């Protein structure tokens, strides 16, 4: 039997991992949704085909993240979810609309296909924006001042930008020809917008939140810490240059923008968790205060140890089955 402190670390880490994996995986398929053209059926079909076999499993990471919060930190879970009641409802409706649009666009009458594509796009934007909006409110400890609402709006736009970036990078990896050229342009544009967004959030956040300011600027290891944002911003520049080269020759390095986007996500996520650790509800509850009963968490840990590696193995299997450039979706 592990003690509560160990369990706080393990489950805190697992929850962080689930959120990070969710942001990267569902991030790219939401991003593809945000980019979906409503006036080009061929491109839309190819883009949908590139995420078809994966989106469902990607979204399951959200259920896992919420589930882990619910299981390991029930008090934190209920504080956060009650505070974010309406934004969560809007996000869920966005996810519902885009999830069903994926199936209806292929199965409903042809004349309604464009409508479902529009729904898919709107649902994706809504879900992505609301996730960023909620992140902003979370960072501001759920204050309802004008300032924190403005910050949440900025954060919402930032997440839409970031998902568009990784979605476009996914398309660079999975498509070819004309669509790939478009994706390279989208990726470059989204990269530049996200670059500005990350800088804006990084400057504003410590200025309006004194705890975050303390965590970074009153730390003895400030110099080491600062390599993180510097590295992150440098990666944006490197990615931009790579995309420039890809415009001339798409034969090599098509996977690089996606890999770099994923690393940028990891660095931003690390920066964020560092700002709040060990709090799970900023300024209110730490992971140690909120942790559930050890007998329950130990019981679930057996499952985690056996099942999580299995999930990773068959996820890799699924990505290998659909490896390479995307082919039209078909049920046979």
């Amino acid at each position: 039997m592990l003690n509560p402190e160990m369990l706080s670390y393990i489950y805190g880490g697992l929850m962080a991992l689930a959120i990070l994996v969710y942001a990267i995986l569902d991030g790219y398929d939401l991003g593809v949704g945000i980019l979906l053209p409503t006036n080009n059926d061929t491109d839309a079909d190819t883009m949908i085909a590139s995420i078809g076999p994966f989106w469902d499993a990607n979204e399951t990471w959200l259920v896992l993240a919420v589930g882990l919060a619910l299981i390991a930190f029930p008090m934190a879970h209920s504080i956060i979810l009650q505070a974010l009641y309406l934004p969560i409802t809007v996000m869920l409706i966005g996810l519902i609309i885009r999830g069903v649009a994926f199936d209806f666009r292929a199965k409903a009458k042809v004349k309604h296909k464009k409508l479902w594509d529009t729904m898919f796009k709107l649902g994706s934007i809504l879900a992505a924006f609301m996730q960023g909006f909620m992140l902003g409110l979370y960072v501001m400890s759920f204050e309802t001042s004008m300032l924190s609402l403005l910050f949440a709006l900025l954060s919402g736009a930032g997440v839409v930008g970031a998902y568009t970036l990784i979605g476009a990078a996914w398309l660079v990896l999975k498509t070819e020809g004309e669509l790939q050229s478009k994706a390279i342009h989208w990726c470059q544009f989204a990269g530049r917008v996200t670059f500005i967004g990350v800088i804006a959030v990084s400057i504003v956040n410590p200025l309006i939140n004194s705890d975050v300011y303390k965590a970074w600027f009153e730390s003895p290891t400030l110099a080491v810490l600062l390599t993180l944002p510097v590295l992150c911003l440098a990666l944006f520049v490197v990615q931009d240059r790579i995309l420039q080269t890809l415009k001339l020759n798409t034969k090599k390095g098509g996977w690089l923008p996606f890999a770099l986007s994923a690393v940028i996500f990891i660095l931003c996520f690390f920066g964020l968790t560092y700002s709040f650790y060990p709090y799970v509800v900023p300024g209110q509850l730490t992971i140690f205060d909120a942790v559930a009963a050890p007998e329950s968490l130990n019981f679930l840990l057996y499952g985690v140890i056996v099942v999580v590696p299995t999930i990773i193995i068959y996820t890799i299997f699924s990505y290998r089955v659909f490896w390479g450039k995307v082919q039209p979706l078909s049920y046979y």
Partner: protein
Amino acid sequence: MLDTLLLSRIQFATNISFHILFPTITIALGWFLVFFKVRYDITNHPVWLRAYRFWVKIFALTFALGVVSGITMSFQFGTNWPGFMEKVGNIAGPLLGYEVLTAFFMEATFLGVMLFGMNRVSPRVHTLSTIVVAVGTTISAFWILSLNSWMQTPAGFELRNGIVYPTDWLAVIFNPSFPYRFFHMLLASGLTAAFLIAGVSSYRLLKKDNKHAPNMTLKVSLTVACLLAPLQIFVGDLHGLNTLQHQPQKVAAMEGAWETQKGLPLVLFAIPNEDTRTNDFAIEIPKAASLILTHDLNGEIKGLNEFEGAHPPVKPVFFGFRIMVGMGMLMIAVAFITRLSLWRNKRLSHWQLKILVAMSFSGWVATLAGWYVTEIGRQPYLVSGVLTVEEAVTTVASSNVAISLAAYLLVYIVLLVLYIRTLFYTADKAVQVEEYDYSIVEEVRHA
């Protein structure tokens, strides 16, 4: 203005009623697909591939609706019922956690391979993926019914400072009502899927679809319905006896029994009146309820008056039970009659096909009615004897809950209409497809 408690209850009922429609189909439809695919692998006859390809589309659509409404469910605990997780989270958490870990990821990942991977993996791996998806849906049912049954008949725990702590996980998972509820639900799913397949196949036949596949799926689904229906009566009876032992007030409400008595009559119809605590307009069979519940004509059954103030609202439980049983009886009769005609005449009459089309969603009606009986029958408790619904509700303002409820209702009504229309539209499209296109079959075999 309605209060947060009532609105939250309506919202949860709306969400879970909408959600359960889709897993009820996919749990068993997954196994039907395994059957079609394995038959195809063995016989290499294209009719099985046809059946598979048609029903895998319906599966994909149904599964997607189940997933999106399920994600909503996972947020509802925190947004509307924080008291639930705070008080019994130590039990509910790991059971939900195991469902996510052992079922959700497996289903979702292999669904991709099953739907879109037929020409990318070997036939064997593809069949295996189909099996994994079916196993996943069943495992998912296992965990969620374990949790639901624990809420009905909690076991294997102790209370410390008002919080529930697990003491014996096996007792928690295999709590007294779990095995009965689990098999009852699996059979309900089997019957629901069987009637859906029979209904849609009949629809295609009525549309002059003279291909082999709809005839084949009609035959298979009616055979399955005939096999599962008697089994369901047997399991349902056991489940009822188990409820009598652990939740007698629920059985009393189901039977409309106010006074404790020996030789309780079976109330076929009545309108229970909670003010006078009697049944109006009752039509009864003497002693029959005692016979069914205790297997003795003069067996004693506790009445609602023994639980005054602590029993569920009588009307919804009473009528829900009659709708479930009535629909179940109708399903059995229709299944046996049509299967017999099919055996004798090799085909069904126009009217028989029409009746089957009308009964496409009969499984939904019976399943929902059954769930209403068991869930309303647990009131006023959320977890029997441990936590009331009122204690668990959120502190969110009622106006916010009203907004979210209105939004969900709107979305769900639209989606339900679209789902049913798309289902029959997919059938219309299948009617127009030519009889076996062997070139596709060959392509698949060699890929």
